[in-house]
């Protein structure tokens, strides 16, 4: 970079090369002097933010609430909007339920799970045998754990103030699927308020969460059966 700049300037014939090197050296030092503190400050902000998230999430044993999902996929002519309910109980139980426009439930309960729609019998799956479900279940667990700092070996994290985390995968394999995940947290509860998943091909999924019930009692049935009487 320095070499290219040197050549360009020398071609103008105004300054001799030796002098030019010294100037560039000084400019570089000045730039680094500004950039490093800025980077260090960003890192400190991020660490503090992640620590706050971890602290809040450690206090969350269960969570339940409504959500709205909007998918913009190349496979569909127009955006598809679903509304539903989410229930999560640490360490490894999750219920993802669509209510409108179609009833559908996906449950992860430890190593097993089930998928149901309003037609047909529930499809039970064993994550030890179903690699796709295992991968999806693993991802969901990762995201709901709240321990984003622990993801740093797999994802690059960037904080956008006031409370938005931009997560970018590191591995090339994962980049084939996901470009980035943008999570906006509600303040001061620090619960996820909105998640946008940007896929590599341009498809996007945006999920907006409603007011959640934190640490409320969740019926065991929620994670064992698709259809529950309200």
């Amino acid at each position, binding site marked *: 970079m320095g070499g290219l700049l040197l050549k360009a300037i020398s071609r103008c014939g105004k300054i001799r090369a030796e002098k030019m090197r010294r100037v560039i050296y000084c400019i570089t030092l000045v730039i680094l002097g500004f950039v490093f503190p800025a980077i260090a400050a960003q890192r400190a902000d991020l660490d503090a933010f992640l620590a706050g998230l971890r602290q809040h999430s450690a206090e969350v044993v269960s969570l339940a609430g409504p959500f709205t*999902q909007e*998918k913009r*996929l*190349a*496979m*569909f*002519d*127009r955006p*598809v909007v*679903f509304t539903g309910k989410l229930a999560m109980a640490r360490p490894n139980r999750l219920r*993802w339920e*669509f209510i409108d426009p*179609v009833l*559908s439930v*996906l449950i992860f309960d430890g190593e097993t799970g089930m*998928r149901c*729609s309003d*037609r047909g019998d529930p499809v039970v799956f064993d994550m*030890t*045998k179903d*690699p*796709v*479900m*295992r*991968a*999806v279940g693993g991802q*969901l667990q990762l995201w709901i754990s709240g321990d984003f700092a622990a993801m740093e070996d797999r994802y690059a994290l960037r904080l956008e103030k006031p409370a938005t985390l931009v997560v970018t995968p590191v591995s090339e394999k994962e980049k084939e*699927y*996901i470009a980035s995940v943008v999570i906006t947290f509600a303040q001061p509860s620090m619960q996820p308020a909105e998640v946008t*998943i940007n*896929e590599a091909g341009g*498809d996007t*999924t945006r999920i907006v969460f409603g007011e959640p019930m934190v640490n409320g009692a969740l019926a065991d049935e929620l994670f064992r059966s698709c259809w529950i009487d309200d």
Partner: protein
Amino acid sequence: MTDKCIIRWIVVLLLVLAGGLSAARLTINDDALDLLPDGAVRGDLQMLQQIGLVDRIFISLSADGQLYLSADTARDALQKSAEALGQALVGRDDFTNVLAHLPVDLSGDLFTLLLHMLPLLLDEGDLEQIERKLTPAAIKEAMRENFLLLNSPVGMAMKERVRHDPLDFLSVLLNKLAFLQAEFQVRPDAGFLMSRDGRSLLVLAESTVSLTDSKNSELLDDELQAIFETVLQPGISAEMIGTLPHTLANSRIIKKDLRFLLAAATVMLTLLLAFTLRDIRAVVVFGVPFLGALPAIGITRFIFGEIGALALGFGIVILGIAVDFSVHLYLALTREKGGRKKILREVRKPILFACLTTVSVLVVLLLSDVASHRQMAVLALAGVLFGVVFAWLLIPTIVGDREGAATDASDAAPVENHSHAGRWILAMWLSLVAAGVLCWPHLHYNGDLAVLDASAREVVDVEKRFAATWGEKGEQAFVAATGTTTEKALQAAGKLFTFITTNGYTDIQSPVVLLPDRNTQERRLAQWRKFVDRNQPELLRALNESADKYGFSSRAFQPFVDNLIVPPDLIREQDYNQSVFAPLLGTMLRPWGGGDGVGSRLVLTTMGITDDNLQPLLEYEEKHSSITVLANRKWRAEVEHFLKKDILLLSSLAAVVVVLLVSLQFRDFRAVTAVLAPVVSALSAMSLFCWATSGDLNMMHLIMGIMVIGLSVDYGIFVVCSRLDRVAVSAKYAVSVCAASSLVGFGVLAFADHPALYSLGVTVLVGIGAAWPTALVISPLIVGKRGRS
């Protein structure tokens, strides 16, 4: 010592030297296959060994529960250990087909690969299933499912699959892939073969050296332990199952047994000789016959080229029979009246008779179908002959001409047969014989060589843990389809697959599901084209209609439509090279050198086997020359049948030859009965003992039974000769010294932990234990106080 004596020693030592030189170049093999009869079973096991199934090593890595509290924490350590272990094994010449992890995980690449190949992998029945997915109602339902799936959290992972296969044709193929199920219950995780509980990981390898060889196994085990120490993470341990631990357990138990028992036997034999012969020359008396071992080994090498370790060991043990002749000769020369020439003339007859009988028994063993038995027979036969000749030449040279000839050994029977006590003793002996005869039909010959396997408790425990972690399948059969080319082998395997799937076999694992032969692929492709031509217009119309209803774009399923139209290339073996199936196909499609041509191929199919479905499979094998069934159940029955036939035939033949020879030698019913009485006693006692203990006879009982017969008949001959001809009056004492030394030498093995050594010891202990008193008491009673001279 006279010049004549010196010449004798020189001649003998030259012969021993020549034998030693020849024996030095002997190749000893440790091949367990030599223990099996010639023919089909042996060929099967050779095939099994050649295709690597015998030399497979299964390494189960486990995480310490105290160090790794959850499966998640154990996962990383297990996978790092497996990765390092795999790299360490791959870099060594002793290992091949190492599988520490699969090349790729079950990912989108796999589905794309299989979808592309789909038309070539579906048969007519599969197309019927696919046709049921093409009705407008089914298509509409599939579109609805796709709509839900894509909008669910799983959608992102399934998007490409839905685009390529919206009607889920792949599920038809995936059902068939159950035919590729691994032998173990594994959960692939990042390509590693994890256990269901996530706390163990499986690594597979194959040894390039034979693991039935104890020396190889020890070396390989040392190497593996050193690797484990280097590569395993803290708290991760490795356990192995397969041939290796069994070979090690057997060899170590034998070594441990022999270390103690040989020392005990040596001390007891020394004490016995010190008390009986009371002469340092006893060492020569016992040592001279064993000089015959070296020339005998030389002859065996000349005939067979190599010899099995078992045959070598037992051959030398059997040639120890020659010691009896040496002892008889020495005792006659030192204890009887008359000059050396007279004594030698007198003992020549019993020694010749006894030698002939022993040799005839060993000649019969030459007719055995078992290679190891034949090698053993040649070695023992040559050894006994050399031993007797050496003893005849050398023993007189160590005894002075008129030394110790004042012994007035009385030959009188302790009791007479017409006395009250004599009748009682005879009655007791007859009772023993009757009991032995009655027990004989109840004995079962157990030809399963596993009864001679000393699997240590640790090995059994490891196998139980392995089964608990990785699942336990029932008994399996391996079926090899061979051909001079891959195509021919695949064709044979394809026909076999059709046979077993239509005849209700279960737990089938066959590579033809993924790699059909070329003809089959071409036929299926033609069928697929007809199928698509027939259904395409209606299918596309219904698909577009339903897709539109759920808001799919017009190009949403373009990859699927393209795949329908564009025919795939025929599948080649190398198409799977980088796929998850590569290791599996590598073990199921193997080079095969057993055929006529170099570069032949073998395709392996496995299936569950029961008593009911084995026979139809064997009938299929009969009709198809390219098919070989490799099944334990088949071998057990066949080996047992062959060995039983072999042993019964040989035993009967040996009995006839012995009776015939003894009859020819003595030509007197009572004398013949008296000679055979120790043999009858030995066999009766062995029969009674086996019935009272396990009810089983095994190979060791029978091999050592032959030795016991050889020794017992000699006791009878020496005692009866001394009685009839009033010569060799020291015979009874000699018989006692010989019997006591055999009991001490071999009887201690009855205390061995190894089942083979135990059987050997018990056979000698019981057989000689009965033959000895019979020779001393019963034989003289039967023959009475008669002299022929």
